[in-house]
């Protein structure tokens, strides 16, 4: 039972990440693409943090009397990744607002057809 669960965790997170990727490449609305990108990023973070969990460990803050801690390295990497992710999202949203001003729409098909005609 524990062995099956050992991998099942990763599989569910991979399915969630693929759902996020599907939203990015299959939907035409720019804002929905950005939400899908956020979903993809959050799933990848869950995958990395679950690599660092040690059974029987606790949060990596040094306390008296605690022997095993969870691995602090994935936490550091994912902290940086979360902040970079929000920076990317903010710039993407600013671009969406400017695209709407220039093209009048935020659907990818309409933008391509307008670009094709000019």
């Amino acid at each position, binding site marked *: 039972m524990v062995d099956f669960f050992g991998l099942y965790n990763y599989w569910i997170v991979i399915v969630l990440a693929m759902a996020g990727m599907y939203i990015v490449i299959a939907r035409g609305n720019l804002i929905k693409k950005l939400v899908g990108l956020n979903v993809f990023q959050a799933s990848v973070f869950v995958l990395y943090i679950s690599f660092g969990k040690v059974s029987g460990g606790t949060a990596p*803050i040094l306390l008296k009397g605690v022997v095993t801690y969870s691995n602090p390295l994935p936490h550091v990497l994912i902290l940086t990744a979360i*902040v970079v992710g929000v920076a990317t999202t*903010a710039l993407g949203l*600013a671009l969406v*607002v400017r695209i709407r001003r220039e093209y009048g729409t935020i659907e990818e098909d309409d933008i391509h057809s307008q670009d094709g005609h000019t």
Partner: protein
Amino acid sequence: MREYLILRVITKLLFPFILLFALYVQFHGDFGPGGGFQAGVIFAASFILYSMVFGVRSAQHVLPVGILRAGIAGGLLLYALVGVVDLLLGANYLDYSPMSAEAKVGQHLGIFLVELGVGITVASVMMTMFFTFATWRED
């Protein structure tokens, strides 16, 4: 938002506590969960709540655009300057050991200043981004 009495009263009551919590998270990041990023975001969230209820103009009375832009650059400058000071004191860039007589006290001081720089930049950037989105006009 003029007619939502509960929102206005509760926002005015909660606003100083949120700022206090942001400062707590910033400076106790050494002893519990927290640090510069979380504190900066909580600080920005308090001002975003205030400007959602009372209008962007009154929030910009407290923090004008010039101060926010100085904060964006100032936090990063503080971080880089800590590294330069370490260079001038003879160690590697961003090696905090020579900043005080003992190595441990030097590390503490270095981590404190660096997290302060991070907190200032993150708070200023989040507030600037929200105010920019809120005051944009299409024409």
